[in-house]
């Protein structure tokens, strides 16, 4: 017996490993129960690393960007181009930060306005597998999250919590083939069932062919599934095909349009009426404008009216050179090599950006 085992040791262990896992799968499928312990171990081991990576991401990307900028500037060896390039990148960074701040602000505004009780969460990783439509968020049962809770953003519904771990939760996205939710159309209040297809587009099933649904129409949650409260935007209809006995309706989820970073988990959902207008027209909080004398200069001074203050230092420099050139009758880009350059040290009267009187002597020809 011992020699038999030694001879077929590998294949025996293989069969045992396969058998054990088959039993594991069968147990879960038959009882509709999860082997929670193993999942908790893995998630607890992996999520802290993902959190640290997420925290380091902002800092490291900034470092890499700055390094590349400095490297390129050194190679170009031109003071002005370096300055302009750096300022442009700074401008982009600021715009990105503003965009992130806008999203966070929109989420905070939505959270404060919605009657539902919510908890904000950040997506920290996606589920394993090439066709996975599951994401993990950094809030778990410690924060009051439970299995089956709805996950939304101000743009629309995102999915539902399928497992709540102590410090993280897995969320089944609405694009997953296993996902389903009750929805209702905005205009005709036609009820249907939203289903994921494993692609970015979802479909709405069980809409009778005689009902009227048009492309461009919005769908909202109906509340019939007891997961999503009534009145949350789902998406816009992209295509409607007539079929028997039900229509084929394709819907583009609105929450997925700009990627997923921050979401809200509905701890206690409150039903809302279906709005009359599409969600893009929903009011968004905008603060009062600053006083007129402290107005910020326009971001794009190239399109600003003459005399308007310039935006960045590079823009001010550009406007100053333009005025100096105009004052001496010089047209940039038209001079031949070796021709006399304009005097850039010329002091112009008045603020930068305003057209100055020509400094060319009477009867003198403009230099080309």
């Amino acid at each position, binding site marked *: 017996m011992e020699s038999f085992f030694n001879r077929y040791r590998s294949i025996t262990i293989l069969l045992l490993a396969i058998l054990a896992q088959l039993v594991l*799968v069968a147990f879960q499928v038959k009882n509709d129960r999860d082997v929670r312990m193993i999942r908790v171990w893995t998630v607890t081991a992996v999520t802290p690393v993902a959190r640290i990576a997420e925290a380091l991401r902002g800092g490291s990307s900034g470092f890499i960007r700055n390094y590349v900028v400095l490297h390129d500037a050194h190679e170009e060896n031109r003071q002005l181009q370096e300055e302009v390039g750096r300022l442009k990148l700074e401008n982009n960074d600021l715009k990105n930060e503003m965009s992130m701040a806008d999203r966070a602000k929109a989420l905070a505004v939505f959270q404060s306005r919605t009657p539902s009780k919510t908890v904000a969460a950040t997506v920290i990783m996606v589920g394993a597998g090439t066709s996975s439509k599951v994401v993990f968020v950094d809030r778990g049962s410690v924060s009051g999250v439970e299995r089956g809770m709805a996950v939304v953003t101000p743009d629309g519904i995102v999915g539902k919590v399928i497992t709540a771990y102590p410090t993280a939760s897995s969320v089944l996205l609405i694009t997953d083939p296993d996902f389903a939710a009750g929805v209702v159309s905005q205009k005709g209040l036609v009820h249907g069932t939203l289903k994921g297809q494993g692609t970015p587009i979802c479909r709405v099933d069980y809409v009778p062919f005689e009902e009227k649904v048009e492309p461009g129409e919005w769908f909202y949650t109906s509340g019939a599934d007891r997961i999503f409260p009534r009145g949350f935007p789902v998406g816009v209809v992209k295509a409607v095909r007539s079929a028997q006995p039900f229509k084929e309706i394709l819907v583009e989820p609105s929450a997925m349009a700009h990627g997923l970073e921050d979401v809200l988990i509905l701890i206690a959902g409150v039903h809302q009426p279906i709005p009359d207008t599409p969600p893009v027209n929903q009011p968004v909080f905008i603060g009062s404008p600053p006083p007129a004398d402290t107005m910020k200069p326009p971001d794009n001074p190239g399109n600003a009216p003459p005399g308007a203050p310039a935006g960045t230092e590079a823009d001010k420099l550009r406007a100053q050179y333009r005025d100096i050139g105009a004052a001496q009758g010089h047209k940039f880009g038209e001079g031949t090599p070796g021709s006399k350059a304009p005097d850039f040290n010329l002091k112009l009267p008045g603020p930068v950006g305003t057209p100055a009187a020509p400094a060319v002597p009477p009867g003198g020809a403009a230099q080309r």
Partner: protein
Amino acid sequence: MSYSGEHILLSSQREGQISRFPAWVMLVVPLAAILFQVYVPLFFEFLSFLEMPLLVVVYFALMRRSQVGGLLLGALVGLAQDSLSKNPLGMLGIVNTLVGYFAASVGLRLDVDHPLIRLLLAFFFFLFHQFFYWLLAHALLGQQVAFEIQRTLVLGLLNAVVGISLFHFLDKLRKAA
């Protein structure tokens, strides 16, 4: 082991030397592969086609030439992947167990330092992985998911190309003989 461009079958037992790796490599590399799979597609969605855990299992099974070691590594990595997905535990575990076992079996017979062999094996095991998972999902879970052959072939090729580079990098972590 010196690379031979002439033959791809092992002509003697001496050629099939077992590659050894430090313990930390055996722990950190599979964990990093799993983290790559769950974290990187969050920002670079197009990289979600990469099956890094599978490639790591194939590599270690091929190079260590231990069937038991290969199947155990495959089972552990597969179960970890299952834990981070909505699958019942064991689905990817079974598939990766088989991949680990068969990759180690192949490693006993072929010159797995040969780049062409590596490319073909990475391609083959990706297809095997995808097909067997589809088969299990169909048979055990009753999922009616279509098996997209063309897409799987393209993804298999992409994974195999990435696998060549990954294997080359992991070669540097081997213990000197």
